[in-house]
């Protein structure tokens, strides 16, 4: 019996060897991953020991920490509730954090390298000064106008988004996604309550957690005509050039017939480019697109920011909210040749063209800003816990130059004409020159159309002060006019919010 006993001894050693090897795996190889895991409560206990800094806009705290009696010493609260949820994100105990809360986590928590001097000072003085404060570029008035405007839209659309930015700097003035959600339950220290709230939002078919302004891509409809118009102006066309139009158009190779939104729009065989933009003439732009060619249009769209899949909105160049790429799609037959029917439809923002609301605002902003597209950002300033020292101030950067200032000027004038006497009249407000372009995009056979508006406001000196994009999903008839009205209100709030920035 001794031979098997010895073998059993060896078996036990092998079993213990396996245990030892596995403990090495868990405690050495995976140690860092486990130590910093989102599910590791130890991280949180330490993290919640220090008062997390505020996220503020216009002098008002949008995210702040309140002292509690519990194991976790501070509770994260969001006084403005759902209104800023998509702009700042949220910081739950056990779930993943998002948005600015995630981007500036270390600074807010006070663990960032930038704040090391502060921590050393605390060590000597015995103070507990907490984390740093993040100041956002948002205008409270514009944000409120955008939030209320979307929620109370007259078309009864339940989903949509609005984003406004300063064309000269790229500073985001408003960022709203509808429907929104209240981030407060997510930050609850009761993990069951937090999970329940998260699951409720997650399972809501309307998708309240989705940041539509940045990550939802929809067919842009006629707003895309500004890209085609830009390409045309660079290829010998002027606003006064007459382009072929008509009440209907069908590609020589076949495909669907393109018509205009109403029989009264450009039934003539030729209209000026200015008139085609002003009245949103589909047949004119379809033929203009075919004349320019798919490559020209795709290239122009790319120069405006389409196809970029790594843009983030947060601290300049430092990450933040991820922005989905806008796409023009394949405008070609399977054999590689241009599909004229598809090109015609793509030229009026249909077919496979998809755009984020941010991209719409960037197009309008670049046009208003003399062709210079500024990199969008949300974080304006990082302030020390005691608010005396500024650790960072946003220095606006140009993202790209999609068009020359000459072309930008022509586009701007045409867009101003759209608001003055065309489809975008609802966006106008007193004291400022407003330009824009409406868009009505077919979504699916049995669905209502999406209503779009992209636009900008110029002050008396012609300086661009706000660029905006509003989309109302499945808003139906008059959706783009309603979008224009909301856009006008957002811009008016943004330019009159003197204390906001």
């Amino acid at each position, binding site marked *: *019996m*001794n*031979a*098997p*006993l*010895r073998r*059993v*001894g060896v*078996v*036990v*050693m092998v*079993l*213990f060897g*396996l*245990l*030892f090897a*596995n*403990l*090495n795996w*868990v*405690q*050495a190889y*995976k*140690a*860092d*991953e*486990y*130590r910093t*895991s989102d*599910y*590791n*409560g*130890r991280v949180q*206990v330490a993290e919640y020991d220090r008062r997390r800094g505020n996220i503020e806009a216009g002098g008002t705290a949008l995210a702040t920490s309140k002292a509690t009696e519990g194991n976790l010493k501070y509770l994260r609260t969001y006084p403005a509730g759902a209104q800023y949820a998509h702009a700042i994100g949220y910081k739950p105990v*056990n779930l993943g954090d998002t948005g600015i809360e995630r981007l500036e986590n270390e600074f807010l928590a006070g663990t960032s390298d930038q704040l090391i001097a502060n921590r050393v000072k605390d060590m000597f003085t015995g103070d507990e000064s907490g984390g740093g404060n993040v100041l956002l570029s948002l205008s409270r008035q514009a944000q409120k106008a955008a939030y209320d405007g979307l929620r109370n839209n007259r078309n009864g659309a339940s989903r949509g988004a609005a984003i406004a930015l300063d064309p000269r700097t790229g500073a985001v003035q408003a960022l709203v996604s509808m429907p929104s959600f209240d981030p407060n339950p997510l930050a609850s220290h009761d*993990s069951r309550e937090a*999970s329940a709230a998260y699951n409720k939002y997650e399972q809501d078919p309307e998708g309240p957690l989705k940041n539509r302004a940045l990550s939802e891509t929809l067919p842009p409809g006629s707003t895309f005509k500004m890209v085609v118009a830009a390409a045309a102006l660079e290829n010998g066309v002027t606003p006064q050039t007459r382009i072929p139009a008509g009440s209907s158009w069908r590609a020589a190779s076949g495909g669907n017939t393109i018509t205009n939104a109403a029989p009264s729009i450009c039934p003539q065989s030729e209209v000026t480019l200015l008139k085609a933009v002003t009245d949103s003439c589909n047949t004119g732009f379809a033929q203009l697109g075919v004349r320019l060619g798919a490559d020209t249009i795709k290239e122009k769209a790319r120069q405006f920011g389409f196809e970029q899949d790594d843009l983030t909105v947060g601290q300049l160049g430092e990450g933040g909210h991820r922005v989905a790429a806008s796409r023009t799609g394949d405008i070609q037959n399977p054999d590689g040749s241009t599909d004229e029917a598809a090109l015609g439809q793509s030229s009026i923002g249909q077919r496979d063209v998809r755009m984020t609301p941010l991209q719409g605002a960037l197009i309008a902003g670049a046009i208003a800003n003399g062709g210079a597209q500024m990199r969008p950002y949300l974080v304006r300033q990082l302030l020390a816990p005691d608010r005396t020292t500024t650790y960072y101030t946003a220095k606006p950067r140009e993202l790209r130059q999609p068009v020359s200032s000459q072309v930008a000027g022509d586009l701007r004038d045409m867009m101003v004409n759209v608001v003055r006497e065309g489809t975008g009249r609802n966006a106008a407000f007193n004291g400022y020159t407003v330009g824009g372009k409406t868009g009505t995009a077919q979504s699916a056979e049995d669905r209502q159309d999406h209503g779009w508006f992209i636009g900008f406001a110029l002050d008396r000196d012609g300086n661009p002060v706000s660029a905006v994009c509003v989309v109302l999903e499945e808003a139906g008839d008059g959706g783009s006019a309603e979008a224009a009205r909301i856009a006008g209100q957002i811009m008016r709030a943004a330019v009159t919010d003197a204390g906001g920035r």
Partner: protein
Amino acid sequence: MTAAATPAISPPTGEQSGVRLARSRRNSELSLLLLAMVLVAAYQATIEATLLDTVTSDFWVPAAALTAVFLGVHVVVRFLAPFADPALLPAVALLNGIGVGFLRRLDLDDAAPADRADLATFAGIGGRQLLWTLISVLLAAGLLVLMRDHRSVSRYAYTLGLAGIVLVMIPAVLPARFSEINGAKLWIRVGSFSIQPGEFAKLALLVFFAYYLVRKREVLSLASRRFLGIDFPRGRDLGPVLVVWAISLMVLIFQKDLGTSLLYFGMFVVTLYIATERVSWLLIGLMLFFVGAYMAYVLGSTVGGPFANFYVRAEIWLDPFADPTDKGYQLVQGLLALGTGGLFGAGPGGGEPGILPEVQNDFIFAGIGEEIGLFGLSALLIVYLLIVERGLRAALAVRDSFGKLLAGGLSFTIGLQVFVIVGGISGLIPLTGQTTPFLSAGGSSLMANWLIIAVLLRVSDAARRPVASGGGGPAARPGGGPPQQLHGAPTEVIRP
């Protein structure tokens, strides 16, 4: 069993080695035991220093209480089992002391900061564990007193076998409110008092296995058919194996406990293998177990019902982070605690065991691991390994087949139990509710494991005792006699 087959310590090659052989090594045991208790006291002092920022003037009281209790056993061993293995008792005492220390540390964590310094010695789960240790050690000493020769228990083999099966079955038969804790029906609960009969069943069943196999080993090991180069037993001899397999599966299904089921089955198959020296038994056993577990998994995913629990556990094991806040919560938190501990740990008292579910029980190894790190846990594993290997050494050295099977089976059972629970909480195998021997809070486990140690001490005493002790040992053996007279068990057949 011939003299040649006995291990190196026993061959009486001369007078001098005979003298060396007769050394009882009780003083080694005593000094090792005191060293272990110093370690336990240091462990408790470190915990207080970390948690209270000061070491209270009576930090040593629990360690001293343990020392007194263990010294009592040492005295019993000194007089009643003088040739017992000197490493067993100190190793177990160290584990038991660290267990008590860690549980007391949990009490300190739970107490309000102001009350921590005044925590009574017998308060909380740490104090209760101290009390259980006292009782367990008394039981172990009592067993040493009553059982002067391990072979005497073979008289009660059938009684114990029946008792073992009854003990296993009681929780399965009882309604869930009397037997279910955390989804596993392993308990008998009366009011706030609960015992885990399965812990005692291990010992009872093993005595029966050992006795049964000693009687049947001839037929089990000789009557066989050769197939694919391996000797397979006859169909009718498979009977008892299949019965135990069925019992294990019933435990798995009705008590929803893979660990205990694996434990019983592994215990039986290994004693069978030791008895028959046939690898085929191991292969058959492993195959049966894996087929059973796989079937339970498949049935769990399709049929559900009684198999669903096992299926869920297997799924958690495959990817604990798939559902980290609900189903995978326990395992994920265990892994995170171990990972946070890293190589050196947060130091005794420096961790956050409060976050870990079941930290006083199933997850005590993870809780301790967070504080003493990979190095500390490796040391604990080595202490366990030491206990198992010293037990196996006793089995090698003892002269009778029953003692070999008993000690070998019990040692392996301790090792397997450590493997099942430590492997479970560290994600090596699916997690099943098992106590960590000598560490986990709870009387049943502690008592049963101390009884096992008493048996191992007794067997190792018999193993190292000089064969022809002319002057006679200090203990007369009432049920003694030459090993060959063990209830007519056949003498060892030396196989070529």
